[in-house]
């Protein structure tokens, strides 16, 4: 597609349920990033993929969070046993993966945990 696509755009779930967030990067982009943006705060780095390898998972807040990527395509971020503090906008970005360069962001998934 023309840009980074994220789905769903909004997700409301009950505490304790699992959720899966999807990101379709721009075709040809080898690097893919997940960030979390809590209300009124900056972007918190979660994880980075180069191809389907994740060299840095240090930003994942807990073992309830996991992510995977199929080749240089779709990525899914899974949150198990959701907690209210997981409520945030989850942003995905992609780039050509040649070092520090422009990130192309999706519109995000607004996750609300009740």
């Amino acid at each position, binding site marked *: 597609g023309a840009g980074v696509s994220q789905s769903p755009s909004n997700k409301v779930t009950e505490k304790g349920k699992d959720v899966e967030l999807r990101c379709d990067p721009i075709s040809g982009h080898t690097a893919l990033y997940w960030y979390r943006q809590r209300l009124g705060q*900056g972007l918190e*780095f979660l994880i980075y993929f180069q191809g389907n390898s994740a060299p840095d998972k240090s930003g994942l807040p807990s073992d309830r969070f996991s992510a995977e990527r199929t080749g240089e395509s779709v990525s899914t971020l899974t949150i198990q046993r959701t907690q209210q503090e997981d409520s945030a906008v989850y942003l995905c970005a992609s780039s050509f993966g040649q070092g520090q360069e422009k*990130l192309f*962001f999706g519109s995000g998934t607004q996750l609300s945990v009740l």
Partner: protein
Amino acid sequence: AQSVTQPDIHITVSEGASLELRCNYSYGATPYLFWYVQSPGQGLQLLLKYFSGDTLVQGIKGFEAEFKRSQSSFNLRKPSVHWSDAAEYFCAVGEEGGFKTIFGAGTRLFVKA
């Protein structure tokens, strides 16, 4: 570790007035510096970036930023603000040869008529 500080949570300026948004970073080597804008209902968009060379960087929408190593700053400026500039602005720093980009907490810009 890298860090980015945006001292102003929000700023209000009159349409047509000049604008300066502050950004200070912490990084041991030469940083890669970015400014992104997040408009209501839209994704983040890159305004400009600094990697090396001329310390005054021109970006889109009439924005510019100046890298000052002695002050560890990368402030964003615009000579005349338009109502459509109302948005949230994020300063970010990346490491040379690395991949992680660290973002500041953001500054929300309000523009009054």
